[in-house]
């Protein structure tokens, strides 16, 4: 993988100047490369990984397993695209194995999510069944540890 992309993946807040210094490239070169990736859709966005539990925002997430009937000519794309348009939906994946779509949904309360599944997802034409798994504890998110800080155990010699 490109070293610049790797750095951005774990430290998106570094400035182009800093990235340039780290990689021995000019600031302009870095800016051009990033702009190109953004244009081409290689880089889709930048976001903070927030531990909402440490804030006063009520925040509940659930993983919903969906079994669906694929549509002729469109396969799973059409239903996936319908589902991903809901604001409550954070992620949608097509899965191998026991079910078809994994949908990560977030809301303010458990009830919000239950109602969303009952009213919005289960009622969709192609949906055969749903199974809702609430997230109880988030340990690690997008490669960042949220629980159980890693302690530096190294001593000095």
């Amino acid at each position, binding site marked *: 993988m490109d070293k610049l992309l790797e*750095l951005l993946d774990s430290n998106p807040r570094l400035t182009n100047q800093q990235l340039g210094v*780290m*990689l021995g490239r000019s600031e302009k070169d870095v800016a051009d490369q990033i702009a190109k990736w953004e244009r081409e859709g290689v880089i889709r966005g930048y976001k903070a990984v927030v531990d909402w539990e440490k804030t006063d925002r009520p925040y509940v997430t659930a993983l919903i397993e969906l079994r669906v009937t694929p549509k002729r000519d469109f396969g799973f794309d059409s239903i996936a695209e319908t589902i991903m348009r809901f604001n409550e939906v954070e992620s949608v994946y097509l899965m191998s194995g026991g079910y078809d779509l994994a949908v990560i949904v977030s809301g303010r309360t458990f009830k919000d999510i239950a109602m969303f599944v009952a009213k919005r997802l289960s009622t969709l034409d192609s949906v055969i069944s749903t199974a809702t798994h609430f997230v109880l504890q988030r340990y690690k998110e997008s490669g960042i540890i949220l629980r159980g800080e890693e302690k530096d155990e190294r001593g000095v010699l």
Partner: protein
Amino acid sequence: MSYQIRINKTLENLKPSGIRRFFDIAAEMDDVISLSIGEPDFSTPWHIREEGIKSLQKGKTWYTPNSGLIRLRESIAKYTERHKGLSYDPKTEILVTVGGSEAIDLGLRTLVEPGDEVLIPEPSFVCYSPLTLMAGGIPVPIVTKAEDSFRLTPEALKNAITPKTKVLILPYPNNPTGGVMRREHLVRIAEVLRETDIFVISDEIYGELTYGGQPHVSIASIDGMQERTMLISGFSKAFAMTGWRLGYACGPKELMKQVVKLHQYALMCAPTTAQYAAIEAMENGDGDVEYMRAEYDIRRRYIVDRLCKMGLKCFEPEGAFYVFPSIEITGLSSEDFCHRLLREKSVAVVPGTAFGDSGEGFVRISYCYSLKHITEAMDRIEDFVNNFRKGACAAKQE
């Protein structure tokens, strides 16, 4: 009972390591950001750990031969051939030791007799002088300078040689300065040495960690030098294996035959589990080293850039994982700088004086830390240094 009259006077007079002292102070404070540690922040690559685990599962818990597992010595021989272009006989010329440090101690005790002088380029790692003293020798520091990129120059070497000189320690890539000796510099050192009977102990523990595209060169690979060099390296720094305690020494068989005797009586053999893991490191670890070196290089460039922007004059290190900036503009001594930085900004770095008197006016900053950690520490150091720069400007205007 009076311990005082019973304890070896030379030992009693040795100062404890100056790196340690700072760490102890920092350990008692909260919210300290340290840049003082001299070991990789990476864990040992998993495939290497796994070989250690497998050896335990198979019950390989006995002593190995004194010199180390023959398979490990063979893989060290191949590795040294591949990376340094040097050939050593695994049966008679390679010894597996408990870390590079044991190898340094063995080398000195094998060669030094009472009154012999040992040349030690400084600033350098803390162990050479105490171990020389314990071997009955006289440490003779050779000061290296930032303007020479902290290299040992042939002139300085010549000036330090006396009829009593027995050994030259060659600690490159260097801890704490990050200085390296390229082939052209080693050739000129070799010219001086070939006319003498001086033996070289070349501590190449950071050999894999050189930056800027040019690989490390061992002095043993310069014409006529292999026969008068004990090459020391190990697994700690390059493969992130500090806790496994494993290093090795290569040298002419007449020398190694004696070195092995010392090792045999004092240590028996290096830890068996570590030796099995190390075979994997030698045979399949090149990619891991490459990856970690690239990460260190990113951090190195970033720190040098930040320090320069703060106005701290900074020699661009070419090896190891330390930066050694001059703190002259603050007007503080190394010790004061480190104490005040710790107290006022809760950042721990090591005073240059821990690495010899010639380290006065410098501090050692390690980059064995995540970028996030380093960024935060650099911001705090910048705040700290800025206060002095403002002060210096105000003083000038008055």
